[in-house]
């Protein structure tokens, strides 16, 4: 494990919370761009493989772009950039909100990426050190682990459907919606079955038998952890105060 990743998981949680809070509160696209850049640099600093994540997210690019366009189209405020007669199709405010949305999504993803540079066990242990009940921390991490499981279930189902000769790409939107509605229940049921099997497996190995758990991991925050956490909190509060004062940033 590289030295960079040896930051305390709680430090990474604080940094992520600061980044995502700013991502939600800030409205200025230039400030959001700045936060995105800082978030990316921090993710790299903590040892995240950003390129791999970007490659994986390529498939989601069309969805992000579609949401930006839809967000832009449904906002009637501001100067019209594109329109037919009285109908406003695209306004400057709409475009700005679409861009802000993209930055927010990226910032929240970066926050998740920063946390994921620590192992599940380190994060759970870090949370229990903050007096969060172990069961709650464990369930949170298991919940996060289930996101890729659901994605995998969905991918398998789509492959099975295409192997029956159904060209999903050629379907019109209404047919696609019908198709997704058709497979939603079985995908969720499949994930629940996996969750039940996982719960049985955990209990059969003595999960929750004793009140107190020991741990092989020892977390000892170092000076750099305190510095990083303090800088993040001060930076976040500072930016918010600055925004409240001039009324532009927030």
């Amino acid at each position, binding site marked *: 494990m590289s030295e960079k990743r040896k930051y305390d998981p709680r430090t990474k949680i604080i940094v992520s919370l600061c980044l995502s809070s700013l991502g939600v509160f800030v409205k200025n696209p230039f400030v959001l761009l700045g936060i995105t850049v800082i978030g990316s640099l921090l993710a790299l600093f903590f040892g995240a493989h950003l390129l791999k994540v970007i490659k994986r997210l390529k498939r989601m690019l069309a969805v992000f772009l579609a949401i930006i366009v839809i967000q832009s189209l449904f906002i009637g405020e501001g100067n019209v950039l594109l329109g037919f007669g009285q109908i406003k199709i695209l306004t400057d405010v709409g475009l700005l909100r679409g861009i802000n949305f993209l930055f927010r999504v990226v910032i929240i993803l970066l926050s998740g990426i920063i946390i994921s540079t620590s192992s599940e066990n380190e994060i759970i242990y870090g949370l229990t050190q903050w007096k969060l009940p172990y069961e709650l921390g464990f369930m949170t991490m298991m919940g996060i682990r289930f996101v890729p499981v659901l994605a995998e279930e969905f991918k*398998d*189902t789509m*492959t*099975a*459907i*295409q*192997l*029956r*000769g*159904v*060209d*999903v*790409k050629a379907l019109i939107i209404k*047919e696609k919606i019908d*198709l997704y509605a*058709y*497979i939603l*229940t*079985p*995908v969720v*049921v*499949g994930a629940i*079955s996996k969750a039940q099997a996982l719960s049985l497996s955990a209990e059969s190995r003595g999960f929750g038998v004793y009140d107190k758990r020991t741990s092989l991991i020892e977390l000892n925050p170092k000076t750099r952890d305190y510095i990083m956490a303090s800088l993040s909190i001060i930076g976040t509060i500072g930016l918010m105060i600055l925004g409240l004062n001039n009324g532009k940033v927030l």
Partner: protein
Amino acid sequence: MGVLIKGCDIAGMELSKIGAEVGYLFQNPDKQIFATTVKDELSFVMRMNKQNEDEIKETVSKVSHQFHIAHLMDAKCHRLSKGEKQRVALAGIFMRNPEFLILDEPTTGLDDKRKLILGEVLEDVKKQGVGIMLITHDKDFVACHADRVLIIEDNKVLES
């Protein structure tokens, strides 16, 4: 040379086009079955093709009898046994009348009785003129049902 289907190389071919020609049975039927009930699973392709209800009912009834699952029509797919799921998945493929079948380890996890039922079903399919490629480690099953056997190890054909 790549893999050809009716003279066309499958490299770069859409999955749906391959699926329209070749029926593929997954090793794990849980990954293949996606509908809530057996009836929904079988009728899926015909409904997607907007075929009429009478035609769908008739075909579902015929295929369900052929694959010994007529009594399971209203059953929830996730509650079926492994053998039943295998037959439902196979029946789902047959709703399209494929000309060729690829079966990936179809006997894994099946007891002798269920292997016997699967063997009977495959023999029926063979009689209809459907080509079958069976990928398996089950030598007894191969000995009972295969016309030609290739033993492959480390990407090389050891015996034919």
